[in-house]
């Protein structure tokens, strides 16, 4: 099966170079772990996109998280991925400057706890009535419904000490921003599988209708990814781009409508700040008026829009947008390794730099 797909891929990428972006971090890992990248013809280039939530979390949002973790009486709850993401603080920040991370803040006394589900953060709040428990909201549409569910549950339970600090993002408008990004050429998109379980195939229509590029929602096995690429190449050949679902086992065109309703019940659109892409309108999610009392930003009056410098040697912002590959960064494998990451793309298990470090030798 794989051989047959590869043979057709080779035929279809005969002459003209084609660049396909895999948006999702889990796809990136699968591409390098399975060795797919090495099997493809040279003219078919895979570009890793902005689909790792930790990697696209902006420095200004990290600054809010660090500021929060230093507040007295606060327990910070977060997915583990975020813990080691470093950022450099400006002079005078809390009397200190230099590089920090939530892990380092924890070593200095901050109460930072890893949870597996946002619902676990509610349990922490119930067990610690004298403390304010804040969940750091990072993630895309796959994760947002679970967080919306936790907020609704907090309301139902009338919890007074649970808060959400939202840096949540939605993917399709970021994909559109990338299509207008001068440094990258994208001939087609491998659309994220698990985000699409929630949103379905409709939100990608602009890619085919407005930009005339193929968009294929793809699963995570090596065979799925190869088939997704083949479907893109066939569409390019025919000159009739459309949104296709390769990941038929899990994705329906309409998505998970209950999850979509839950998102709309709790959140409203707002701008979001993306590492590497900047501020993109309508790609962020903030709590609706009805849920304001759970808004960690309002409660703790954290510094908004503060820009802190990440390590100037770190080029994660360019890696995320596909402008460069990790190998183009001078620090990659030298000063920047999984043990001593300079930026989020090397920290996160699904970051492009980490995937290249581990599997693309």
């Amino acid at each position, binding site marked *: 099966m794989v051989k047959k797909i590869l043979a057709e891929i080779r035929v279809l990428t005969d002459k003209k170079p084609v660049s396909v972006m895999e948006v*999702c*971090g*889990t796809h990136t890992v699968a591409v390098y772990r399975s060795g797919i990248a090495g099997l493809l013809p040279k003219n078919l280039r895979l570009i890793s996109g902005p*689909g*790792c*939530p*930790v990697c696209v979390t902006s420095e200004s949002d990290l600054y809010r998280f660090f500021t929060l973790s230093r507040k007295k009486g606060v327990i910070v709850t977060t*997915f583990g*991925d975020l813990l080691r993401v470093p950022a450099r603080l400006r002079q005078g920040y809390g009397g200190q400057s230099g590089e920090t991370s939530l892990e380092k803040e924890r070593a200095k006394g901050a109460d930072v706890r890893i949870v*597996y*589900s*946002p*619902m*676990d953060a509610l349990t922490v709040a119930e067990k610690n009535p004298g403390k304010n428990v804040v969940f750091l909201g*990072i*993630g*895309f549409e*796959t*994760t947002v*419904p*679970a*967080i919306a*569910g936790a907020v609704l*549950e907090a309301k*139902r339970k009338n919890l007074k000490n649970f808060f959400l600090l939202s840096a949540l993002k939605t993917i399709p408008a970021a994909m559109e921003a990338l299509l207008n990004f001068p440094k990258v050429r994208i001939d087609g998109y491998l659309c*994220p599988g*698990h*985000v699409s*379980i*929630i949103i379905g195939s409709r939100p990608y229509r602009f890619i085919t209708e407005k930009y005339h590029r193929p968009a294929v929602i793809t699963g995570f*096995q090596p065979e799925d990814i190869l088939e997704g690429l083949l479907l893109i190449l066939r569409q390019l050949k025919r000159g009739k781009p459309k949104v296709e679902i390769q990941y038929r*086992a*899990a994705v329906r065109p309409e998505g*998970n409508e*209950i*999850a979509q309703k*839950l998102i709309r019940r709790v959140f409203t659109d707002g701008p979001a700040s993306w590492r590497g892409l900047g501020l993109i309108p309508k790609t962020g999610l903030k709590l609706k008026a009805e849920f304001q009392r759970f808004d960690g930003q309002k409660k703790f009056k954290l510094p908004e829009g503060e820009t802190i410098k990440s390590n100037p040697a770190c080029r994660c912002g360019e890696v995320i947008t596909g402008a460069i590959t990790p190998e183009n960064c001078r620090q990659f494998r030298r000063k920047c390794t999984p043990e001593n990451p300079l930026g989020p793309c090397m920290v*996160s298990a*699904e970051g492009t730099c980490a995937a290249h470090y581990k599997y693309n030798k």
Partner: protein
Amino acid sequence: MCLAVIGKIIEIRKPVEPDAFPQGLVEVFGIKRTISFGLLPSAAKDDYVLIHAGFAIQKLEPKDAKKTLKLLKANNG
């Protein structure tokens, strides 16, 4: 971070209060876990589901679930 794992439903409990999310027990690679079915109320005992951040997000056909689990075991084995 958008990783999802496959679990088989062992039981779904009735919600403790009428407006609470239904919860239930799933088995993921031999480990039992409590998850929420608030996003997938149609799920039933013995169904295979994709789980993300403590919530079932999608049902899978048993043949698709078994195929993926077999591949995952082969890759990690």
